[in-house]
Structure formats: structure tokens, C-alpha cells
């Protein structure tokens, strides 16, 4: 037992090192980063965070990201719920092909869709809106949500559905009042993964936005390419992008722990 937890502790310690280093740098000034090498900041400073939280070109990036990630997560999970139910409960013409086709969208490199998205959204006037990024991210999030939810739904006995229908429940009423509470954990996990993949994606988010909906990840690349690396601000911005993820994962930790793909195991 001891040996096994040792592996875990060593792994976590090692995997925290890069993050720790970024946090460490975010409390230093640029001059200190470049001149001296210390494991803790010598002159502890909040200045980098102040820069980000007071400069609207920085903090609006966070707001933009959160907006499109939320829109995307809501649409993905809402659309995926009935579809996952259909896949887990019924056989219908072309269901297996359809399921695989959905998965292929998850497999498609976003780079493939880059140009068409650009043209499509320019044509219909969605460029540089939160909706554009949210819609673009549906490509990989909807299939994933369907996949995860289908796994959870298949873990629920079909007798429950049948009993409910015999008792005179209509499909929408059964689905919302009985079925949904049963797969709450699945919805949580699906939402978590949609949030995650939309939050971390850069290529599409950067290409489809310029000013109004510019996500934080794109704001950061701008700083990377600017002359004279502003390492300290970059590190602080990086730390702030990790925080929403850490919060979200804290909320779903129980659900993930309770069994990811119950029906598939």
C-alpha cells in the first residue's frame, strides 16, 4: 500500500513543478526573473495581477472566454441529452453509422475547419462574436457530450422508462422529472468536459475573433509575440486561466469519482 501511494505523491509533486514555477514567476518582476534565479520571489509583488485586473484588454479576455464557454456548454449538453437517450434506448435506421459519424467530428483536427469557418461566419456576419466561437466549438463538444451521456444512460435500467410510460408519463415529463435526476452525475461530467475542451481551445477561438470577443488565450499569444517578453505578466495571466478550471473540477470531483462511464464498464 505504501509503495503505491509513493508513486502518486511523486507524480503529483513532479506535475506540480511547472505550475509552481509559473506561480512563482507571476509574483516576481521582470527584472528579477531575468537577473536572479530563486525558488521563491525575493521581492514579492502583486503588480502583475494588478496590470491584468485593471487593464480592460486583459480582463475582458477572461469575460469573453467565460461567455462563449458557457454558451457552448449549455447548447452542447442540451442538444446531446435527447440524442444520447435515443442512442442508448432505441435501434433506428443508421444508428451505428450516425454514432460513428458523430465521433469523426470529435476526431477532426480543428485546423481542417479553420478556413471554412472563417468564410462561413464572415458571410453570415457572426465573426468576432461569442456565438461564433461557441458554435465552432460544438463540432467537438456535441459528439463528446453524446458519447459520455450515452454511457451514463445505458447504465440506467430500461425498466424505469417502461414503468414510467405505463404510469402515464409523457416523454418530456418522464425525461425531465425522472430520468434527468437519475443521470445528474452524467450531465455534470459531460458539462465538465465540454467546459474543459472549450476553455482550453485556442486555434478556432483565436481565428474567429478579433476585438469584441477576443478570448484570454488569444490575448496571451499577442503578448508572447510582442517584442521583449513580458514574462511576469504572462505568468500571472497563465495563473488566472488555471483558476476557473480548478474551481470547475472541484465541483464535479464527486461525480467523476462515482464512475465515469458506468454503462460501459
Amino acid at each position, binding site marked *: 500500500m505504501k509503495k*503505491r501511494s509513493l508513486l502518486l505523491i511523486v507524480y503529483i509533486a513532479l506535475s506540480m513543478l511547472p*505550475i509552481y514555477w509559473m506561480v512563482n514567476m507571476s509574483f516576481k518582476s521582470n527584472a528579477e526573473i531575468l537577473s536572479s534565479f530563486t525558488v521563491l520571489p525575493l521581492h514579492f509583488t502583486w503588480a502583475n495581477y494588478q496590470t491584468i485586473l485593471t487593464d480592460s484588454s486583459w480582463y475582458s479576455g477572461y469575460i469573453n472566454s467565460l461567455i462563449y464557454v458557457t454558451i457552448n456548454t449549455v447548447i452542447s449538453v442540451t442538444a446531446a441529452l435527447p440524442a444520447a437517450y435515443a442512442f442508448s434506448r432505441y*435501434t433506428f435506421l443508421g444508428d451505428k453509422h450516425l454514432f460513428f459519424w458523430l465521433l469523426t467530428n470529435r476526431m477532426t483536427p480543428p485546423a481542417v475547419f479553420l478556413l471554412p469557418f472563417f468564410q*462561413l461566419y464572415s458571410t453570415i456576419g457572426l465573426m468576432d462574436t461569442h456565438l461564433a466561437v461557441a458554435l465552432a466549438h460544438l463540432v467537438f463538444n456535441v459528439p463528446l457530450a453524446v458519447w459520455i451521456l450515452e454511457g451514463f444512460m445505458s447504465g440506467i435500467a*430500461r425498466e424505469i422508462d417502461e414503468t414510467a410510460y405505463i404510469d402515464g408519463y409523457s416523454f418530456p415529463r418522464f425525461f425531465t422529472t425522472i430520468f434527468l435526476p437519475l443521470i445528474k452525475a452524467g450531465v455534470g461530467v459531460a458539462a465538465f468536459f465540454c467546459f474543459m475542451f472549450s476553455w482550453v481551445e485556442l486555434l478556432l477561438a483565436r481565428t474567429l475573433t478579433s476585438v469584441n470577443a477576443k478570448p484570454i488565450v488569444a490575448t*496571451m499569444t499577442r503578448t*508572447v509575440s510582442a517584442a521583449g517578453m513580458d514574462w511576469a505578466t504572462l505568468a500571472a495571466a497563465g495563473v488566472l486561466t488555471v483558476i476557473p478550471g480548478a474551481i470547475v473540477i472541484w465541483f464535479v470531483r464527486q461525480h467523476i469519482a*462515482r464512475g*465515469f462511464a458506468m454503462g460501459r464498464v
Partner: protein
Amino acid sequence: MNKPVNQKAWLLVLPVLICVAFSSILPLMTVVNYSVQDIISPERRVFVGTEWFASVMRDRELHAALARQIVFSLSVLAVEIPLGIALALSMPASGWRASAALVAVALPLLIPWNVVGTIWQIFCRTDIGLLGSAIKALGLEYSYTGDATQAWLTVLLMDVWHWTPLVALLAYAGLRAIPDAYYQAARIDGASRLAVFRYIQLPKIRGVLMIAVLLRFMDSFMIYTEPFVLTGGGPGNATTFLSQYLTQKAVGQFDLGPAAAFSLIYFLIIMLLCFILYNWMQRLGTPGRADK
């Protein structure tokens, strides 16, 4: 128990179809459209048939990028899957320690991809980075921007750091779904830890492992952002993977036709590989599946 046939289920799938059609079928058709035309200006376009496909297929750089990509993806799987399983096995089953371990292990997953690149940049630079300075202090030559092998290994290490948590999470969830009765039975039989793993845990987590392998394979096959930020595809072409190469072509040089033809070939390669993998694992998983 077989699922009942119900064609009305299509209605339930409809919302997904509409979403995905808008964001996948339409763009894909545009790509097909580009791939057979030479677009000189928005008004002037010439139908060129399969010319772009032919030229892309003969592209030596593409062959090299594909080879690098395959080696990279296989290395990723070879490291991350065993490591992920080992981690999952060593995580506590319940209590606050389980929660803390889960959050700590999963944290790298929630970091935006370009921030991952940035983190590793400031971690590996020999002047300001912890790892870079540490290796230099040991007296070794290290430069992820200068040496091809080291750049490649750094990208691999970054990917392992970034994505092993996903495998661990999935495997962990699979392990938690195993009823205690199995372990009790194994204890009565006096099974060794290895036997428990081989005959109980491994078969039981096969389903989620399948998801993990598929996800890791697909995602590593389209890796773009992290190496883009860390190495920019260099030195030379050492870490230029398929997506990098495609983006260079499409956005950098704006070669719409060849880029589109390349996109389609790329798409087909991925689909083919995943189809094989998916079917192979489905077959592998079928006899042991509890619901069959």
C-alpha cells in the same frame, strides 16, 4: 436484451444533427469545394480536378510530418496509458484524500493549451526555467530550441504531463465502478495483487480504457497549440506535426487549394485509423461486456 426499434428516435437526434451540420457538414463541403479549385482571386476560380491531391500526396515534407506524427502518437500512447493506469491504481478510493488527489492530478487538463506551452517554455528555458537550469547545472547540454531530439522529447514530456491525467481519471472512474464483491472473492481465493489486476481490474476497465486510448490517439494526432507555443515546430521541422504543417499552409501561405486537399487527406487518415482502432477495441471489449 435488444433495444426496441423505433424510427422516431431520429427526432431526438435531430438537434444534434442540426448543431453538427452547421458546424461540421457545411465547413467540410467548403473544404471539398476548395480542394478541386484553383482560387486566384475571389472572383476567378478554375476547376483543377484532383491536381491538388496529386501534388499533396507527392509532398515529401508531408510524408515526413506524417511519419513524425505517427511516431509521436504511438509514443504518447505507450507512455500515457500504462502511467495513467498505474496512477489510477494508486489513488485512494474515498475520503478527502481521494478528492485532493483527483483535483491535483486533473489540474493540468484544465489549463488552456497555449498556457501549457507557455508554462513549459518558462519551465524549460535554460536562463529562467527550473528544469532548464537544473539540467544545465548537471553539466548537460540542453536546448529545446536547438537540438531536434531534445525538442521532440520536451514536447513528448509536455504531452505526458498534460494528458496522462485524462487516462488516469478515466481508469480511476472505471476502477471505482467495480463492486467490492469481486475483491472479496479474490481475497478468498488468495489471489495476488497481480492476479487481481490481470483478471479483475483490467477486464473491468477495458471499456473506459478504450475511450482513453481513442481520445488520446485522436487528440495527439491533431496536436497543434502546445508545440506551436513551445517550439514553433522547430528546430528545423523536428516538431512540425500534421496540424502545424496544415496551418502553415492554410494560414501562413494561404494556399487554399493544396491546404484543402491536405485537410481532406488528413481527415481521411484520422477517420481510417480511428475506424480500425474503434472496431478492434469494440471486438476486444465485446465478450467481457456486462450488458451483452
